[in-house]
């Protein structure tokens, strides 16, 4: 055994330490970074992590250091036939190093329970939002805010007020999903047959990335959403607009060289033979489908198909044509196959549909992406 591998060992441990520091330093503005909290729930978790991280680093350095020192110090010299002292143990020392880790985990446990208690609080005055998981999109209902006792229903964009506690009531329509907004709060499962609750307060306005974090089937990776935290006044303005159904569609929109007409698009949308209304709803119309996302004010969505494409009329046109390719397994393209679309929707009709969906907009000042 020469000295090369030993230096390799030291080198690789050193590399690990560097890696750890880089990891903490790399708290850049990645959209999902848990080290970059903007919500009270996530912040408390981060603040719990920091002391534990330092304790862990201490343990790591001491124990790995002892290991490397032992290898270097007690390696067998070539030709040595020495038999070292046959020490079988030392009860006192062993009791000592049974107690040492126990004390460390006791400290960590106390810190943990404090944070846990703080994060389990559900304030009375919190805004309640119901979030329902579907394969593979998120539905959001605002039960206390809609007109005539009906909740405001939307999907993929969850608007919340900044500075006011929010309690998300989590449910699932089919399989288990997992509600995760890394910069605002820890994960909570959405379980069919069970209701879960998650409370947090967004501390700053922002558009926050969020995902389903529990494997939920074929397109699990493509099940995302955005949390849009705006000032309370802006949030109330959003609510007021969402309470009223969209006005009668008017105007045109040029998509891929074709001029779509919004009014014509609405007629196509409401035509039962075109199948849209079987699954989708738009407030103030006869479209009351419950299976797919509610499309009221679709023109103000941030993304298409649960966070997989930025919302633009061009991408919406693409989604209507290439849904199976863009999101394998999705229910709409299993029913309305590309062949069906080819036979039942002309390019002009698709342009009209896009124009209609794009015409329904709310006015809201968007916060920065976080």
């Amino acid at each position, binding site marked *: 055994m020469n000295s090369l*591998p030993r230096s390799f060992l030291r080198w*690789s441990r050193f590399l*690990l330490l560097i*890696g750890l520091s880089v*990891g903490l330093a790399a708290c850049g503005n990645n*959209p*999902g970074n*848990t080290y970059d909290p903007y919500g009270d729930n996530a912040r*408390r*978790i981060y603040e*719990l992590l920091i002391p534990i991280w330092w304790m862990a680093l201490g343990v*790591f350095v001491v*124990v*790995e250091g002892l*290991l490397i020192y*032992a*290898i270097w110090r*007690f390696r*067998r010299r070539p030709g*040595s036939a*020495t*038999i*070292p*002292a*046959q*020490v*079988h*143990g*030392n009860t006192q020392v062993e009791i000592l190093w*049974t107690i*040492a*880790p126990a004390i460390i*985990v006791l400290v*960590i446990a106390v810190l*943990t329970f404090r*944070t*846990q208690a703080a*994060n389990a609080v559900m304030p009375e005055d919190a805004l309640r939002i119901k979030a329902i998981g579907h*394969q593979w999109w998120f539905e959001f209902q605002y039960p206390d805010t809609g007109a005539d006792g009906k909740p405001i229903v939307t999907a993929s964009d969850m608007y919340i007020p900044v500075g006011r506690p929010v309690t998300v009531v989590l449910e699932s329509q089919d*399989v288990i999903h*997992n509600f995760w907004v890394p910069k605002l709060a*820890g*994960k*909570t*499962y959405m*379980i*069919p*047959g*069970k209701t*879960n609750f998650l409370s947090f307060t967004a501390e700053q306005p922002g558009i926050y*990335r969020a995902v*389903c*974090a529990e*494997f*939920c*089937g*074929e397109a*699990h*990776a493509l099940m995302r959403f955005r949390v849009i935290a705006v000032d309370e006044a802006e949030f109330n303005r959003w609510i007021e607009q969402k309470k009223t159904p969209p006005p009668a569609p008017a105007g045109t929109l040029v998509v891929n060289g074709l001029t779509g007409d919004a009014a014509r698009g609405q007629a196509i949308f409401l035509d039962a033979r075109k199948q849209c209304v079987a699954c989708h709803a738009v407030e103030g119309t006869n479209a009351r489908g419950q299976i797919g996302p509610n499309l009221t004010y679709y023109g103000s969505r941030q993304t298409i198909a649960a966070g997989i494409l930025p919302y633009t009329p061009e991408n919406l046109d693409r989604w209507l044509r290439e849904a199976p390719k863009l999101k*394998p397994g999705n229910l709409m393209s299993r029913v309305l196959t590309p062949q069906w679309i080819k036979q039942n929707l002309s390019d002009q009709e698709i342009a009209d549909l896009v124009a209609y969906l794009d015409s329904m907009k709310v006015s809201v000042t968007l916060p920065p992406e976080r």
Partner: protein
Amino acid sequence: MAIAERTAGTVSPPSVSVRPGWAGWLSTTDHKRIGIMYLVSAFVFFLIGGIEALLMRIQLGTPNNTFLTPDVYNQMFTMHGTTMIFLGLMPLNVGLGNYMVPLMIGARDMAFPRLNALSIWLFIFGGLMLYVSFFVGGAPNVGWFAYAPLTQKQFAPTAGVDYWIVGIGLTGVASIAGALNFIVTILNMRAPGMTLNRMPLFVWMQLIVAFILIFAFPVLTVATIQLLFDRHFGTRFFLPNLGGDAVLWQHLFWFFGHPEVYILILPTMGIISEVLPTFSRKPIFGYAFVAYSGVAIGFLGFLVWAHHMFAVGLGPLANAFFGAASFLIAVPTGVKIFNWLATMWQGSLHLTTSMLYAIGFIGMFIIGGISGITLASPPINVQQTDSYYVVAHMHYVLFGGAIQGIFAGIFYWFPKMTGRMLDERLGKWQFWLMLISFNLTFFPMHLSGNAGMPRRIYTYEAEMGWNLWNLISTIGSLLLAVAFLIFLWNVLTSIRRGPIAPADPWDGATLEWAVSSPPPVYNFAVTPRVRSRRPLWDEKYPHLHEVNGSHEAPVVRRGPLHDGFERETPEAMEPIHLPSPTYAPLIVSVGIMILGFGIIYLGDFGLIAASAMLVGLLIMAAGILSWVRISHVDSPHHAH
């Protein structure tokens, strides 16, 4: 390297009929051959599981990659997890245990040699059934944890989940039978003088694992049978909209699943506890602490299952309890690590490949243990669970820990099992390449996970900040594959051309080194007598215990096979009684497998499936009849 002066096995072999060639393997009841069959078949499955991992790493190397379709990717991670746990790590440990435990306790075979043969065949057929699913509509694609209700027929219509249920079921029966066999063997067949507190620590850990297994595995078996009934026969155990409970599955699964982690890691801790003393030329430091901390880990392992479920919403009180219980596991684990360090302390460390892997185990397991602390803390857990951080943590424990431990064991015992030495140079190349590429693969996953990357996603967006970490992981995984190819090459060449292994190549202290390499079929011509924890060192270094300080002058060493171990006069030997070779366990296993195929299709193709089940039952009955006959022939009243 110490060389034994004499090799054992100079006595003339007693009359044992071993069928030549393939027939010998198919009909064997010898624990050593069964151990090798476990090791070889588990290693093949392990390589397949590794290929599945490589395919996933290639897919994730760059954002928005289209190398695998989502469904194929989902099949890959399901099969990777299932394969590595049930068909790779577990049977590798069982294989080493099967070969070594009887030798280490001075026994001639396992307590139930035919049951042992049944275990290996059920394991192999269970694994094959799982892989048949690829060719009949698609492998299971619901994750190795198979959370309800995604496993129900409406969400998972292919037969993949059914093959998963039956395949896991067969390996489960094999494991439970194997565990009973280990318990009876270890408790009843130790050589005279080998009290429980003189057993080698590897045997201790195998004993603990066997107990964990018989408490944990039946829970999984019951849960999967309930799932089978949900899918085909109209029950609703896990169907929430029909009165069942999706969370019930998670409780059942993790009540098995967490102890399973200790089923995987404890035997390798046992290996480390044999390898470190041998190559430090010292006894294990604090034998009792190491042994009983294993018992503590095994016990606590049953009280922590819900730390896999902190995000499920069980409530703060339940989460606090399971968090606290999980923290407690740090205590016996820390004790083991400190005792291993103390074993090396002031030793004379012989850095063989086996020793390097044992040290590598400690080094990487420390990282896996530390990263587990944050996962045990419920508030931090809900940020890290289901993210790549968990993937990193779990691989530091099961790869950096268990796999390196198994390599320590393989490099340690390969000479004993084959009679040939593995190439140490290649072994060290493999070790360093593996250590570096392992860290390249899995360390960045801590970072991508904490940067918000969820597990089990087949693709991700370029702007998430995960690109670099994933690229490094993918490069690391390709290098890891090279390390495994080096090992494969080392085994294939050494088994034919490696230097002949002496009986005691490492100057070992336990009984397996008292017999020739490979051992005779009957292991010990005469049952050895044991007077301490290091019976072989008692023989080799009779004056050692009188000296307390370091022995500067070489200690006089006697031949290892002195009086108590082997008497060299065949006349003095008692007749050796070994079980006859038999095909009965193989036939029974084939019958059970056909029965399994019938069960999978019973709901869809009733008549054909029922006929297949009948055929399976008939074959099983024939096997059992032949089993009864041969056990009658072998019974002590009948033989000799």
